[in-house]
């Protein structure tokens, strides 16, 4: 499987790359910086992954061409907010923002520990996006659309504080019809 991982100048992108390589058998992961996105053709890939990163989703307008191509997209943290923004959703500052903390959330009928790093959160899901998970305080932790091939995780499956990060990658492949 050919995966394009777009790096939004984050310090966790390689953790995500290694998680993808370790979880997806036979994966070929190409990592490009956000500024190099114009030179890549998302149509050449089976999956596009949008990394976490600093700033707000509106700071990253170049993703429009990724969505227009229509390949399956997985977004992590800022990546999820970018997907949501593209579908007309809303993002706002998270009161008492949270960075470097682990917490347990409900996930497909089980309790799973995940790592959180975010100053912003999705306050209104975009068109056609279903909220797939919230934390105990009601903050959206995952959203997506099978129809549109979009999935976002607000938490960080690549963190060492998410002990079973691989299951979220496997889930993404299933959800996006890649397995």
């Amino acid at each position: 499987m050919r995966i394009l991982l777009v790096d939004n100048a984050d310090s966790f992108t390689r953790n995500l790359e290694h998680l993808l390589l370790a979880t997806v058998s036979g994966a070929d992961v190409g990592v490009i910086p956000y500024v190099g996105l114009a030179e890549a053709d998302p149509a050449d890939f089976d999956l596009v992954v949008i990394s976490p990163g600093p700033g707000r989703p509106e700071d990253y307008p170049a993703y429009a061409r990724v969505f227009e191509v229509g390949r399956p997209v997985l977004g992590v943290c800022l990546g999820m907010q970018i997907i949501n923004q593209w579908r007309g959703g809303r993002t706002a500052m998270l009161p008492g923002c949270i960075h470097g903390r682990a917490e347990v959330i409900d996930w497909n009928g089980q309790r799973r520990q995940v790592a959180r790093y975010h100053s912003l959160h999705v306050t209104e899901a975009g068109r056609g996006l279903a909220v797939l998970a919230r934390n105990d305080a009601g903050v959206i932790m995952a959203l997506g659309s099978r129809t549109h091939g979009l999935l976002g995780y607000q938490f960080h499956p690549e963190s060492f504080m998410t002990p079973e990060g691989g299951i979220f990658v496997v889930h993404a492949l299933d959800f996006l019809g890649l397995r």
Partner: protein
Amino acid sequence: MPSTFSACVERRVFDALAAELVRETDNCLDQGADVLLSVPGHPAATTPFIGAGRGDELVFSAETTPEEVREFCFGSPGAAFGFVSYTYGMLLRGVTSAKPLDFPLGHLRKYAATAGYDEATGTVTMSGEARAMDGLRKRLARIERNPPDADWPLPLSAGPQEGPELSLPRKEYEAGVRETLARIRAGDVYQLNLSTRFRVKRPELDPAGFFLNLWSRRPAPFYAWFASGTRRVVSTSPERFLRVRGKEVLSQPIKGTLRLEDGENAQGLAARLTGSAKEDAELSMIVDLIRNDISAHCEVGSVRVAAHKSVFQVDRLLQMYSDVSGVLRTDRDCLDLFFEAFPGGSVTGCPKASAMAVIDQLEPHSRGVYCGSMLLVRGERDMDSSVAIRTAVCDMQTGILEFWAGSGIVVDSDPASEYQETMAKADKFLTPEAP
């Protein structure tokens, strides 16, 4: 012809040899030595090193490339030792700054002879040119015959002292913390390390005595003495940046500090440190960052975290750290790893590039060697390096001693507490005479 020599000696004999050579550095730059001392048994302990008799040098400019550093280190035999500045790290990470470059961006040296001490076997091993080695051997034999008294370090000179002058005094430092908090809430950074520079005029200061006195009373795992032009770098860091031994990679980032007051229970205080949600978040974030930074040159699936939230005591401070390890890819060397991960995430914040850009806006000073690294490269897969915190630079020409201290700011940081933590870290150089 290069040769080698090994002998069993007591550790204090090796340290005394290092001390003698350090003292001579100030008398004559062609004599003396650069040294790296360490504390046996400490989690971040490193192999002590002496580099004597100056060989080739590489003084970094903005144009120096990692490839040139690689050629310098690996192109000829012998260990290379010196520093790489934080400012050079800014260039590597593409962070531009308008601040003047008034200090070499790095300085590495090779030596006529080197000596290392293996704590496990009690063996000193020397290598280098026969004549230079001979000199070292004779000195070692003389010291062994007449071991120094326990109080060999020089007393500190109590001459006049002006200052300190802080680049970010209390009010400005706390304002910097508040600005950092605003940047965190806006999502620009997740964590940021903010520092202040201290400047003290001490024309009478004997830097060698200063270094040796501190070493004898407040030892730490990475004590480095390095002569660079008219400056003497006195680095007393407790923190390992990156070690490579064969294929094994180890980083030991420190986050979380508590001052241990007289009579206080260290165990109770350590529990307070490990139980703090704020300190936990601070360290965990940097552990994830270090995992990222070493992953570029480590085997997929090899990067691990162990001993998370361990605590050790140094400089009357309790510090929390973790072990982040990995397996170096067979087609990579230690400098690939070093330059990809440099500067250490514990002194930048996260994400690294945006944190470094904000740091440059908030700090009026240059960090120079501070928050860079003291680096010892013995071979392509044999390296150890510190994060150059608790580090001072003494200019022999101007008599000015500069040092820096800082703290990691996270969303629930309190400006006044962060300033206090910064002052606690600066205490080693602010009041070096204190017991």
